[in-house]
């Protein structure tokens, strides 16, 4: 047994040397973390910031003045409020994306509000930017109703017919989108690293012609697979841990020591699942190019169906099962939970448990495919 591990050890050592010498892989290890860190922390944000709003109003009463003042005061969200002289101009501005939303106020607006009569405001939104438009709609609606209430006659104002909402955000009190995006980076990056390295590993040896030299050696195909699986696993683990420390330090996420340990434990079954996927791809590919293509074919839908950017509840039930077997989904959920709350061990186990059968599944599939391709 010791003898066998000595043999596998030789293969693992060789893999590490080869990975380190390969310039492309060094780039995969170093560049994506830096780029993604920058992109996710500064560029990718769901918050609506610095949008422009247009107004066409036929009424110049005090209510409208107050509304405009409020809109202009919403710094950060609304960069500028532009008045247009005609409805056509307002429409044109929306068409040309100069504004995200256009507000049209009819004649008599102020008078009717002051008289306590019901009145409407028209809001035009740019549906091409659906997400931001929806959020902006919420802001504007809130402002309009506040202004209206402020100017409404006292007898109407007093008996509040609507219960008012008092919001309290848990886990992320300021609703910083970086707080929900960054934890996911830990797993997305180690996913990328592991997938790339494993997807190339066998294909590369095939391309270079060294693979046959391995196959005629006394290593069994399982031993070859173990030797091929461990180095990417180790590298993915190191990369993930580094990212975890880096984002905690740089962005001040509330990660406790206990959660950090649990997070590293979560990485184990997760990375093994990805190693399995990578080896599967690599067994199929006969060139490195095919391997790379295979890796991307997997990576893109895996990220899209992981709940990283869009809620999983929106997925059509027919393809919901893909998300259910997507290891990235469980890993992302687990990292978010670990970074932002202090879950009970039982809850975490419940979250992470599916990764165990998934990793066994992908590794077995890779082993079976590898054997059939070799035999």
């Amino acid at each position, binding site marked *: 047994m010791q003898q066998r591990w000595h043999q596998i050890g*030789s293969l693992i050592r060789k893999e590490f*040397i080869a990975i380190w010498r390969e310039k492309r892989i060094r780039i995969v290890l170093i560049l994506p973390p830096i780029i993604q860190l920058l992109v996710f922390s500064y560029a990718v944000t769901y918050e609506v910031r610095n949008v422009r709003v247009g107004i066409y109003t036929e009424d110049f009463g005090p209510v409208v003045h107050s509304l405009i003042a409020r809109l202009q005061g919403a710094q950060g969200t609304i960069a500028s409020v532009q008045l247009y002289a005609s409805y056509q101009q307002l429409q044109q501005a929306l068409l040309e994306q100069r504004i995200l939303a256009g507000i049209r106020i009819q004649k008599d607006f102020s008078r009717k509000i002051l008289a306590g009569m019901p009145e409407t405001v028209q809001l035009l939104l740019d549906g091409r930017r659906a997400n931001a438009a929806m959020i902006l709609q919420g802001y504007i609606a809130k402002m309009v109703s506040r202004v209206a209430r402020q100017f409404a006659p006292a007898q109407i104002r007093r008996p509040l017919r609507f219960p008012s909402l008092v919001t309290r955000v848990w886990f992320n009190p300021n609703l910083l989108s970086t707080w929900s995006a960054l934890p996911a980076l830990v797993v997305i990056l180690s996913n990328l690293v592991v997938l790339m390295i494993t997807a190339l590993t066998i294909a590369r040896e095939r391309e270079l012609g060294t693979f046959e*030299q391995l196959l005629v050696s006394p290593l069994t195909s399982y031993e070859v697979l173990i030797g091929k699986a461990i180095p990417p696993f180790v590298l993915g683990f190191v990369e993930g841990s580094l990212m975890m420390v880096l984002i905690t330090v740089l962005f001040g996420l509330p990660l406790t020591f206990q959660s950090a340990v649990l997070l590293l434990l979560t990485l184990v079954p997760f990375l093994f699942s990805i190693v399995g996927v990578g080896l599967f791809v690599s067994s199929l590919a006969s060139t490195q190019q095919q391997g790379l293509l295979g890796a991307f074919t997997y990576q893109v839908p895996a990220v899209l169906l992981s709940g990283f950017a869009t809620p999983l509840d929106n997925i059509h039930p027919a393809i919901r099962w893909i998300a259910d077997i997507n290891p990235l989904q469980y890993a992302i959920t687990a990292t978010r939970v670990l970074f932002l709350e202090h879950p009970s061990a039982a809850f975490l186990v419940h979250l992470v448990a599916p990764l165990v059968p998934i990793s066994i599944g992908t590794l077995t599939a890779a082993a079976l495919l590898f054997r059939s391709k070799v035999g």
Partner: protein
Amino acid sequence: MLNHKKTAPIIQLQSVTKAFPHFARVALRDVSARIHPDIVVGVVGPDGAGKTTLLRLLAGLMTPTTGTIRIFDTDPADPLIRQSGWIAYLPQHFALYEELTVVENLRLYADLRGIPGKVREPEFARLLRWTGLERFQHRLARNLSGGMKQKLGLACVLLSRPRILLLDEPTVGVDPLSRRELWSMVQTLRQETGVTVLWSTPYLDEAERCDDILLLSEGQLLFQGHPQRLAQRVQGKVFQIKVPETQKRKFVFQTIENPQVIDSTVAGSFIRLVLRDLASVQQWQRQGMPIIPGNPRLEDGVLALLYERNEQRQQIAVRPLEPARQSQHRHAEEVVVSVRDITKRFGTFTAVDHIEFEVRRGEIFGILGPNGAGKTTTFKMLCGLLKPTSGVATVAGVDLLKAPAAARARIGYMAQKFSLYGDLTIEQNLEFFGGIYGLPRQKLRTKVEAALREYQLQPYAHTLASMVPRGYQQRLAMACAVLHDPSIVFLDEPTSGVDPVMRREFWLRIFQMVESGVSVVVTTHYMDEAEYCDRIALMYGGKIIALGSPEQIKDAVRSDQLPDPTLEDAFIALVQQHFAAMQAER
């Protein structure tokens, strides 16, 4: 053609150097040469000597780093020259469209060359007749044999009626019959059209028939001139000695270690010797050995030149025989490899067609044949890399496909292409292969050191394998294949593309191995190397068309027209017989 025109060189190279970024070695170093029109020039040298770089420079596909090239007094990279079609280049792997038929390929190249419709049909007919491809004109290019593909490639580049024809290794991996045909086709072409041909080749027997050769080694031009001039360097120093069949290998061993001997090879029933001085001749004569003078060949001259440059020939350390092995040595007629009626089909294509042979302990068994004959497929089935469609192949009594992996520790395998880890150093490669074969740490260390010494790899021990010269890579490949002392060694074209010095060295190592009781199965497409084997199987089109000792095979075709056939003659005769037999069957 006027006489003075003939003497004016058509191609001039003035201290041409070509270096590629990221490569430590320079591809061509300070090459100056003049090439006269209307001749066939052999561009000779092993892989990595710079042959392809030279031809590509002449074709104007790249420009020299320093120095100048003039063709027709113009820079070959000049767009005018390139459009004229005067210079035609046939790369090693010519881009034939495998999914198109022969005639469709011709039509495509005619389109690319802008040859007008009217001229086409007669031109196609002429080229098809000349290449002998008329009968196959509607066959898909991928279904052509290696030789036919080369002929079609040649036809395609000739469409532009070039005045200079650059052929990059047109005969490598092509069967001997097609090789001869290609050669005579090019000769006729030259006579009829006065085209100047640059023909690159690793085969020195082919180069010997050229009018002029450029001998390249590691980017340097070692010699330019008529091949005869190089051969004459060893004039009067070539001898043939008749040695009993069983003593041949031993005699080669003894003589090659003699510093007075430049070369010693098996040539049929003789040993052919190239000597530095003649003192030993008298000694052999005194011993009563029949010795007769031989004709110097180009290869002898090249070897003498290479040895002169390297001052002293590298001595090959003789591996001490292990006692256990010695006692087994040539013990019995023990069968170590047995192939019983195996066939391998890939889809509808039959790569190996019902073949049978046996290899005995301590034997060198050669599998010979052109590319596509099924040699490598047979090899892979023996090593358990491919599953035969039918039949059984056993090695050391077990079927490697089914046997436990540990059984593979008894075999050593050296794949056809250089297949080691280029991003590991030489030493790391050895350590890796020792490691996966389960050599214990201590033993591994001593083995690696011994291998570095024995294969003279020390100067490169810490250099990446991808950066060392080709010959060293081959040495490393062999060292890795036998590091774990296998009892059966499979070598797939170990000498392909290496220089003659290195080829000698390889065969000496193979001899050493079998002397210590190892059995060796080797494939090669050098017919002369087959003489070193105890027994050979000639493969053609997936079948074994002859099996036996080299003598037996030559005897089979010996006739009044062919009183002393070489193995190449024998091969050609046997292929022709094989065709005749197939035709008769139909």
